[in-house]
């Protein structure tokens, strides 16, 4: 049981959604953001970000595979979760999310990756032996045709999938925002801004993650980081971040100016139990500082090597900030009583089903999946020396 002050309804003594539900929008957001970055190259022909294209797709897939796990671990009866697909309640945002998720995973991401990699898979199947040959054979789904006409079809279908993938990615994370934003009982969540704020913060977090991964993989493979690529990505990150920050500020100003019945309660919370995670980590360290860093890289003449370092640090701070934002939405939305007369606390446990350890494992898992995927389907050119720099 949690500690509390003031008056809270008796049933509010127990906090309902734990750190695992914080992970859920965080991970889903990374997926949507990574996909949007990938689509920049494919649909909008931003050639400079090409070195991150396949990496972004694989990262999106790896994280999307993990996205339902925190929800499953949180359910009282995970064995019944499939009922959401069999007997969905159509007025429930949560039930419909299951279909949005499935659509995105199977129709958009898996198909797009398959068409993009089909040539590589068939080539790998031809060249490999033993178990690997069987794996690639299965992955090729019986397809062996590498003629120019077939490859052109791959390209066209891939492009088409990316085009429908962009609204799908918007839908995926906008929908996560709707799950919270549509709860009228909770004034901290209830806002039509929520889906759009979630969407832009998702784009920001996805771009930041791919940038960090690109740096790490380049260092690991001892290949140089493509300056033009990271310059371009950092510019898009700045744009998306500015929109995201403006939307959040608009929401904040609107709440402060309207000051409805919930305002005093929420204001008190932001200045006490949420002060560290909201004001310091999310807004200051996770938003203002990286915005200033990214902005100064645009405004001032800074040496390329220094710029690279600035981007790297800014991206790490951005990810911390977006995680704090998810925390402040999910946990913050439960720290005040719906009576607006009291506050409760959240004590994270460690080695329990919904504890910190589980959360850490769930955050490491997508990177392991990504390593596996990258091993089977290398997202970079095979010969490091031939890579464009």
């Amino acid at each position, binding site marked *: 049981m949690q500690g509390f002050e003031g008056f809270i*309804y008796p*049933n509010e003594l127990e906090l*309902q959604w734990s750190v695992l539900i914080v992970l859920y929008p965080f991970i889903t957001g990374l997926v949507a953001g990574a996909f949007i970055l990938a689509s920049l190259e494919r649909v909008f022909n931003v050639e400079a970000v090409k070195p991150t294209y396949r990496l972004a797709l694989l990262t999106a897939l790896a994280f999307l595979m993990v996205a339902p796990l925190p929800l499953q671990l949180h*359910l009282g009866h995970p064995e019944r979760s499939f009922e959401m697909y069999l007997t969905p*309640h159509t007025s*429930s945002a949560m039930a419909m999310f*299951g279909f949005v998720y499935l659509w995105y995973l199977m129709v958009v991401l898996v198909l797009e990756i398959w068409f993009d990699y089909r040539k590589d898979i068939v080539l790998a199947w031809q060249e490999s032996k033993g178990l690997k040959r069987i794996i690639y054979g299965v992955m090729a789904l019986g397809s062996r045709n590498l003629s120019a006409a077939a490859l052109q079809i791959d390209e066209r279908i891939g492009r088409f999938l990316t085009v429908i993938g962009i609204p799908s990615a918007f839908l995926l994370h906008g929908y996560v925002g709707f799950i919270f934003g549509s*709860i009228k009982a909770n004034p901290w969540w209830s806002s039509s801004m929520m889906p759009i704020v979630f969407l832009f913060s998702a784009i920001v977090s996805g771009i930041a993650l791919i940038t960090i991964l690109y740096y790490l993989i380049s260092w690991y493979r001892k290949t140089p980081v493509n300056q033009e690529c990271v310059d371009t990505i950092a510019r898009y990150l700045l744009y998306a971040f500015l929109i995201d920050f403006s939307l959040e500020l608009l929401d904040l100003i609107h709440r402060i100016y309207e000051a409805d019945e919930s305002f005093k309660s929420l204001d008190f919370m932001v200045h006490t139990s949420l002060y560290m995670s909201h004001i310091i980590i999310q807004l200051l360290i996770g938003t203002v500082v990286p915005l200033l860093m990214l902005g100064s890289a645009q405004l001032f003449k800074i040496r390329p090597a220094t710029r690279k370092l600035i981007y790297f640090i800014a991206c790490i701070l951005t990810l911390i900030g977006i995680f704090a934002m998810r925390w402040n939405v999910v946990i913050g939305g439960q720290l005040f009583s719906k009576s607006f*007369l009291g506050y409760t606390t959240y004590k994270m446990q460690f080695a329990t089903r919904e504890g910190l350890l589980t959360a850490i494992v769930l955050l490491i898992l997508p990177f392991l999946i990504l390593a596996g995927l990258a091993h089977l389907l290398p997202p970079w050119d095979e010969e490091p020396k031939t890579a464009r720099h």
Partner: protein
Amino acid sequence: MRENRRQFLNHASKLLVLTAPAAAAWPYIRAERPQDAPGYKMDEHWWGMAIDIDKCIGCGTCVRGCKAENNVLLTPQTSRTWVERYLVDTDDMDHPRVDSPNAAYDGFPDPGPQPETVKTFYVPKLCNHCMHSPCVQVCPVGATFESPDGVVLVDKSYCLGCRYCVQACPYGCRYIDPRTKTVDKCSLCYHRITKGLTTACCEVCPTGARALGNLKDPKDPIHKFLRENNVLVLKPQMATGSKTWYKGLDGAVR
């Protein structure tokens, strides 16, 4: 003769496990037309609750009665019904002092001497059995539903335990039962009211502060209560279509 014996055994075995009205209703329930069963007619009922704040003395008997009748855990965070005590200082109307120790299971301790400017009253709370329940709206599998006779119920064999409904209820009426890992809430003693009894909380209330009402029965006293008093629901701005009406509800109550 043989047929008669079989019939007799059939009836006797039903009576052995079911109560008499349930046994009579059984064929209709099997045929998925429970409303045609003799005794309780679902389409002749539309349940609501009338609460008279002036009559509530904060004894907590309703809380004890509910927990005993419905086998509810005795912890405060598992409460189908509870009572809140408001101490409102007329010098400072904006900051009422509210408490509900152990969900008022043991009543309330003496607050001690209070200034003359303080008014005190008790507010019993329970599921409002809303007509447009936000909890029902968000349930991903339809495990919680509004029955045709106006009661919000939970199918525990279907509930995932996702807690979305707990978040969606503006009144804090829902909780997770740690024994079943599913959501639990006031069922308006559905097992009693369909047999012609009133709810446990209404049954045991010593002052008659609560009264169950069938809104489809024009002779039900709830109509007089709603007609002759100024009544209000909790958080009307939530527009949930609450069917729990309060007489004498103070503006300080949340």
